[in-house]
């Protein structure tokens, strides 16, 4: 973990799970449940990833974009801030903040290509308008830390940096962005949880290594459980349910 995380705005703004799980009253009125809320955010994380693959940006940009989107919905309602516009705009803003600018017109082009549905249709001017609103919703805090950097350091330190472990853990970290973990936990703990899951899965003994790290193993195990629960329930997240949730808005 970079030494400066502890003095960063990211660290200061970590939230409790209860605060992240608060459905905005405006959305609640429309019948949006906590589960709908989570489903929509997951769907939008996937949307950001799909768009990012089209415009070819680094994983880091995707991770930052998803974090922005999730932060926005801890403060704003989906009723006022349409997720179908917020998601691509977050990718647009993250691409700038992470120094890999993507043109708005390219995004608009790929949005049309990915979704025929009119509800996803937004033009450049919509994205630019929303960019300003998102900046405000984020209170202009744009620096986000991610588990990726600490992940490679940890793997190397634990002597687990072979290709298979690297790929598995990297994929696990990617999947954590389908959940709200990045809003709640310091990124290096998320990385450690992913390594924990992978080492259990690949039957690598890391007990001693974790002991030497002097981190609270209970926290690591709790995060790991959350991730595993997510994989468990993921099977039930069908397109119909996502569309039903979006339809409420």
């Amino acid at each position, binding site marked *: 973990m*970079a*030494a*400066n995380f502890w*003095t*960063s*705005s990211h660290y200061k703004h970590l939230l409790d799970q209860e605060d992240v799980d608060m459905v905005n009253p405006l959305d609640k009125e429309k019948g949006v449940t906590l589960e709908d809320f989570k489903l929509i955010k997951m769907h939008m994380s996937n949307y950001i990833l799909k768009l990012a693959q089209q415009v*070819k*940006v*680094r994983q880091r940009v995707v991770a930052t974009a998803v974090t922005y989107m999730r932060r926005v919905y801890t403060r704003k309602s989906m009723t006022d801030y349409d997720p179908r516009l917020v998601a691509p705009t977050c990718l*647009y*803003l993250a691409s*700038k*903040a*992470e*120094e*890999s*600018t993507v*043109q*708005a*017109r390219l995004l608009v082009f790929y949005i049309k290509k990915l979704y025929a549905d009119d509800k996803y249709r937004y033009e*450049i001017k919509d*994205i*630019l308008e929303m*960019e*300003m609103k998102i*900046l*405000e919703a984020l209170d*202009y*805090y*744009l*620096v986000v830390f991610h588990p990726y*950097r600490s992940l490679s350091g940890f793997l190397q330190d634990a002597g687990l940096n072979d290709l298979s472990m690297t790929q598995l853990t990297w994929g696990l970290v990617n999947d954590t962005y389908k959940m709200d973990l990045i809003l709640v936990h310091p990124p290096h703990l998320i990385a450690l949880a992913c390594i924990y899951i992978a080492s259990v899965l690949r039957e690598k003994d890391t007990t001693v290594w974790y002991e030497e790290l002097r981190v609270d193993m209970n926290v690591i195990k709790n995060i790991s459980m959350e991730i595993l629960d997510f994989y468990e329930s993921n099977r039930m997240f069908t397109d119909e349910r996502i569309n039903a949730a979006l339809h409420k808005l």
Partner: protein
Amino acid sequence: MTELDPSKKVADRYLKREVLGEGTYGVVYKAIDTQTGQTVAIKKIRIGKQKEGVNFTALREIKLLKELNDPNIIELIDCFPHKGNLHLVFEFMETDLEAVIRDRNIFLSPGDIKSYLQMTFKGLAHCHKKWILHRDMKPNNLLIGPNGQLKLADFGLARIFGSPDRRFTHQVFARWYRAPELLFGTKQYGPGVDVWAAACIFAELLLRRPFLQGSSDMDQLGKIFAAFGTPSPSQWSDMVYLPDYVEYQYVPAPPLRSLFPMASEDALDLLSKMFTYDPKERISVQQALEHRYFTCPPPPTDPDKLPRPAPKKEIKESDLNPREGPTVLSPPRKTRRVMPGRDGLEGSSLQGDKVDDTHSNLKQAAGDNIGKSDPAPMSLDFSIFGLKPPNRPTINSADRSHLKRKLDLEFQ
């Protein structure tokens, strides 16, 4: 000056006053924060017709300044959208270090120099501690507040470093402050580039003129080698592998003392450590702060006792006073700063907010060509002499667009 007019209140909080100037990405004006009574400088970022939303440079500055919080770094007080434009609110700064260096009425004691340097280094150390490179250190980006506090400003070129093997553009810094590794085209560099620039500022404070005034990148290296000798491979082993490395004719280093006759031994020692060729061997800014130069006498002057250019209005009056300029007596070495045949340079400083590159260029153009007299405060009216101070090269438009392309394309 604009009257306090409630209709000029922006975002229900700021009372707009006079325009201070035109920045890289919009107009800068003075305002009063009605919540705190504080005078502030507001940068209005043009968005309007641009198809790419919030200006990239502005966004960078916002991103980094939100993470930096230090008495020696400019404070971003607030951001707000107003009529479709984004506005950044900064603390109001009276002047900048370039204006101090250039003001021939100001005598800088060794304690004064130490104080300005210490504040510069402290601000820079805070950036480096947070893994942020400033990349545009120069006297006119070091702003000075009403209480004499010096603060680093203009983070439009700054960026986060520390991810291994990231490649950056070498087209950063105004040329005179560029480290040799940048001039040789390195794309992997670290905080050493800021240290080199800080050393140039140190030298400039001692000499009262820019130290290494290269007219091109090649010439800049020539000037560096003339001052410190052509580096040998034993001094800097990686040099020959740098992308734009070319062999320079060997010149021996003159004694450092001959370049800085007035400097103390401690100052010379620190300077030589900061001007080390090999970036890996170069002293860090934190180590520089711990150098004996800062602990040995004389102590750094208290910031609010530091000499500063006279406030704006008085300068304007004195400009009209024919007795001013010509009668000024100054040590002979200082006259070297005034050189004929250079392009005009106005406004060593738009006092108050930082003047960024495009801005000073714009101002020059306006002042020289159109003759539009925007009263940029100067300590001395050079037109009286028909002489002009040396033109500071900033990142020129070619560099800028090159930089922008790189930033857009390279960091995928």
